[in-house]
């Protein structure tokens, strides 16, 4: 059995990242190492991992085999063992495949995007490290090992977001991301520890946990589930912990593509799916998840309609798509959620890369209203973006359509009409703001013809094409039965399928129609407003939506400021003026009383004699009292 290869899926990127890091330090301290070395090393690792993952994929086809590999005993306290173990079931292999695939493409893209950057090697060091952590996250066989990857991606995103660390803003954005994720991790840790005590009495890997879940009081499970979901919220940028995601755009565009499209943000969804055995037992929490997802989707979509920064728009769209995924997994349609993760990975990565290409072309201009007319200049990018936009809006037969349709179907069929409604509304908004972006950027007239465009390298174009192709076909592996397809994803992720839902076909067709209609409506509105948009009049945006509902301000005002005030109060008031006052006050008091007492030392013989007399008389009176 070649299970140890599982470890290598993680190990290859890890090792290569370590090598890259050391080589980078070496090259800046000692001798300059040519970029090509970094490129080769950095790009090879994801594809090697992909190969290995694919081999496992092939072994899995048709059977329900689960590959386990326990590398070594990670921790063993008081007879309770936790192994550094890897588990490959269909879900994780599915994740591994598209993570490595899309990740690999993004690596290629980055090799072009960062070509001129000084910290080229460092960048790929972070990238590979990130990939390794992500793969560890999905391949872990126990929550705690998963948590290692979980935090690993967190810290990598910190480093990548604050990649241009000279600028304070970027580092602040990184901090924000890390702290917000930490809030989530708090929930994750609490959940893990509760699980260890209540569930993991015999082993802490998923299998034992699943076995142990059965006879645990429901309220405990509810607690665990909610705590875990807090972690998911933090990682996947849902309400209320989403604030870090827009700022995270401070990083280079490939970073945005890798972190916010393909991989990291979907970790939350994956985690919920991974704990499906838990959430199956607590549908109420699942419902909460679905609602949180729905509202996040709507909320993000609304904000996105008024943004002008191209990457911020995409960030908010990511958030709202993640909302969709949470609707699905919350309502038990784990396979559906994962399916959307899959498709979303393609078109969102594509969108980001396209945006990145445009940005590069326009010398790092990010305001869409300063762009325009890119269609003629960068046709390939335009077509790629068009496909991606169609995909995300859910126009058949593009990828997004099938997955989104299934999500809404799930919502509808499980009787949550409100969620379904929100979903449809969001779909309209999605179509609107995505096409708004597309029209403004590519069709809008701009008067800066004179400007010389920066060339876009081949290594940036190639992945676009691949992903565009992917965005078209990715959906086909999930064509529902009624369209004559056989839902490959569904069958592959059979264990994660919510078999309870079923609606008759007529309804299903109607729903499909509604989705398409919604997409069309949104597109039409966008067309009316923004087609051939005249760039001369840059719209003045203001109002609550443009201000993102003041969420950042509110957090800053009511949490950050308060904490800082408390901190100042403690460290400069309480400690200095109260506790230290008591300590030093004692010594000062001693000295003061010393000065007071020393008045007695007045060098007057008669006074001294008198003092003696007093002492003697006191003693004598004492004696008299004793003797009677």
């Amino acid at each position: 059995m070649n299970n140890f290869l599982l470890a290598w899926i993680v190990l290859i990127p890890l090792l290569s990242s370590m090598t890259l890091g050391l080589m980078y330090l070496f090259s800046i301290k000692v001798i300059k190492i040519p970029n090509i070395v970094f490129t080769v090393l950095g790009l090879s690792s994801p594809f090697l991992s992909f190969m290995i993952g694919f081999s496992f994929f092939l072994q899995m086809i048709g059977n329900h085999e689960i590959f386990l590999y326990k590398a070594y005993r990670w921790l063993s306290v008081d007879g309770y063992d936790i192994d550094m173990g890897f588990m490959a079931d269909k879900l994780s292999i599915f994740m591994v495949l598209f993570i490595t695939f899309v990740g690999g493409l993004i690596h290629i893209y980055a090799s072009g995007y960062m070509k001129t950057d000084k910290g080229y090697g460092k960048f790929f060091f972070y990238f590979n490290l990130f990939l390794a952590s992500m793969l560890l996250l999905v391949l872990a066989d126990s929550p705690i090992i998963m948590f290692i990857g979980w935090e690993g991606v967190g810290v990598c995103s910190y480093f990548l977001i604050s990649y241009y660390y000279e600028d304070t803003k970027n580092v602040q954005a990184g901090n924000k991301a890390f702290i917000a994720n930490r809030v989530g991790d708090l929930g994750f840790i609490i959940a893990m520890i509760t699980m260890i005590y209540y569930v993991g009495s015999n082993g802490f890997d998923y299998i034992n946990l699943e076995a142990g879940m059965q006879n645990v009081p429901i309220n405990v499970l509810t607690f665990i589930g909610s705590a875990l979901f807090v972690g998911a919220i933090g990682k996947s940028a849902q309400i209320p912990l989403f604030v870090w995601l827009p700022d995270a755009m401070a990083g280079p565009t490939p970073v945005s593509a890798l972190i916010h499209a393909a991989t990291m943000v979907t970790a939350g969804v994956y985690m919920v799916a991974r704990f499906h055995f838990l959430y199956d037992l607590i549908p109420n929490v699942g419902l909460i998840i679905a609602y949180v997802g729905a509202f996040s989707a709507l909320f993000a979509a609304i904000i996105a309609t008024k943004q002008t920064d191209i990457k911020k728009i995409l960030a908010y769209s990511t958030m709202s798509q993640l909302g969709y995924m949470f609707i699905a997994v919350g309502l038990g349609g784990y396979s559906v959620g994962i399916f959307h993760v899959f498709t979303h990975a393609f078109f969102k990565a594509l969108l980001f890369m396209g945006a990145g290409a445009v940005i590069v072309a326009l010398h790092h201009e990010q305001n869409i209203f300063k762009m325009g007319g890119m269609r003629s200049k960068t046709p390939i990018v335009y077509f790629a973006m068009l496909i991606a936009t169609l995909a995300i809006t859910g126009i058949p037969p593009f990828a997004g359509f099938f997955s989104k349709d299934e999500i809404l179907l799930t919502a509808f069929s499980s009787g949550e009409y409100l969620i379904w409604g929100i979903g449809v509304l969001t779909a309209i908004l999605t179509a609107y703001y995505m096409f708004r972006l597309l029209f403004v950027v590519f069709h809008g007239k701009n008067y800066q013809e004179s400007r010389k465009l920066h060339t876009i390298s081949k290594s940036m174009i190639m992945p676009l094409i691949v992903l565009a192709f992917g965005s078209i076909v990715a959906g086909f592996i999930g064509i529902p039965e009624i369209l004559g397809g056989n839902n490959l994803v569904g069958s592959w992720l059979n264990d994660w399928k919510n078999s309870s839902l079923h609606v008759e076909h007529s309804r299903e067709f109607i729903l499909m129609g509604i989705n398409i209609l919604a997409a069309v409506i949104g597109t039409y509105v966008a067309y009316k407003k923004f087609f051939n948009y005249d760039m001369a009049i840059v719209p003045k945006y203001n109002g609550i939506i443009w201000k993102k509902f003041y969420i950042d301000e509110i957090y800053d005002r009511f949490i950050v400021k308060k904490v800082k005030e408390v901190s100042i109060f403690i460290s400069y008031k309480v400690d200095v003026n109260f506790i230290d006052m008591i300590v030093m006050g004692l010594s000062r008091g001693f000295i003061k009383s010393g000065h007071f007492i020393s008045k007695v030392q007045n060098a007057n013989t008669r006074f001294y004699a008198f003092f003696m007399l007093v002492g003697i008389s006191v003693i004598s009176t004492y004696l008299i009292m004793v003797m009677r």
Partner: protein
Amino acid sequence: MNMPDFIYILPLFFVGVGAISLMILSTFKTITIKKGSVITLLFLLFAFFANVYNLNNEDGVYSIYPFVDIFNKMIIVDTFSGYFSTILILGAILTILIGLHYFQKHKGFTVEFFSLFLFSVFGMMLLVHSNELISAFVSLEIASISLYVMIGFEKVIDKRIEASYRYLVLGSLAGLFFLLGTSFIYAATQTTTLGEIGNMALNTVDSNTPLLIIGGTMILITFLFKIAAFPFQNWALDVYDGAPLPVTAYIAATFKAAIFGFILRLVVVDFDLIIDVWDKILVYIIIFTLAYGSFLAIIQKSLKRMLVASSIVHTGYLLIAFVSISVIGESAASSIIFYLVAYFLSALGAFGLIAYISSADQLRITYDDFRGFAKIRPYMAAMLSIFMLSLAGIPSTIGFIGKFYIFTGAIESGHSILAVVGIIATFISVYYYFKLIAVMYFYRSSEMTDVPPLQGIAPLIIGVIALFIIWGGVGNTLIAYFPGVDFLIDMAKSSYESLFLYG
């Protein structure tokens, strides 16, 4: 005249003869300070060896009344007195050796001074040897009067004579209470000989017990005055401050030992039936003494006054053990004796070193004068730090062991509260002792051109004392045959036992 008896009083004899002969020699111009001090040293060394001979001569503990027919049990020679006379003579020798440089440097010291010095030593030795109240008073007065004169010897300096005057008035005032107590005790028991007082007190009618208690208390008052315990402590600061530094060291270290030597004998032999009357009052006296000393020592700018004030604190520690006597006689008494040695060494060293480096007009005795001293005279600074640590009772010095015994005894005898008070006083003392170390080491050196370098006998002796302090702190009879801590304690214990051979 039988020889062995004479050998027993030989130490006393040597010192006395030395005193008188120096008195005579001082009339000759040819006798310089140096010669005088050498002669003094010779006599003291004779006395010392005679004393050590007596100590080793008898196997185990011994107790003899020499010349019973003449002295009629007024004088006793036993391990106890031998032990104490060793301390006293040693103190005298060290004082002379340390002070030699000082005496030579300062005008106004003549050979008579050494004669007086020997007289005071004689008085103190007689005090620890005396077995009868009046003779104790006599020897006490011999010591005190010669001290009065020694303090005021440099009669051109105001503070000297002022200190002398104050000491004289208050000292004689306190001495009167000793006599008063003696008269009461005589009234109660018709005797003033130790050992008989107790017996008489036991088998006379109890109507006399109050008299005995009052008398004892009067004597206790004198004793408290001499060791500068709380209500009677004011004089100490002035007198010690006014006295020349070697004399200060001598009073603070040696005289205190002598007083304790007598009072221990008195209390242990005779007053064991009334000492528990004093328990409560002594507890208060101790608390006040410790507090007074600590508070006073904290604020001192002058190093000399600080050491004096802290000597009041150490009196408090000694009294803690003194209280415990009523419960745990042996270990308390021996802990007093040990602590006396510890304090005696540390104080003598500290005063002596300051005396050595203080220039002619008594400068360099405030904290600030010692800024950066370590840079100029690292070894002296190290010695001074060792003395400070020992006085503060930091481990690996003899001071810690002494405090250890004192507090252990206090707890053992159920006076835990006193132990706690003592602890508090200790950590206050850490402040003013460590301040000196900080000043010496942590500042850039100020101008200190006229510091005498390490030469002559005095620094050597001080260094030896410092080594002894360290040895007393870590000394271990296992490491070498060289007497360690255990040896000192065993000596103290055996000397205590010797008090019970008669009576």
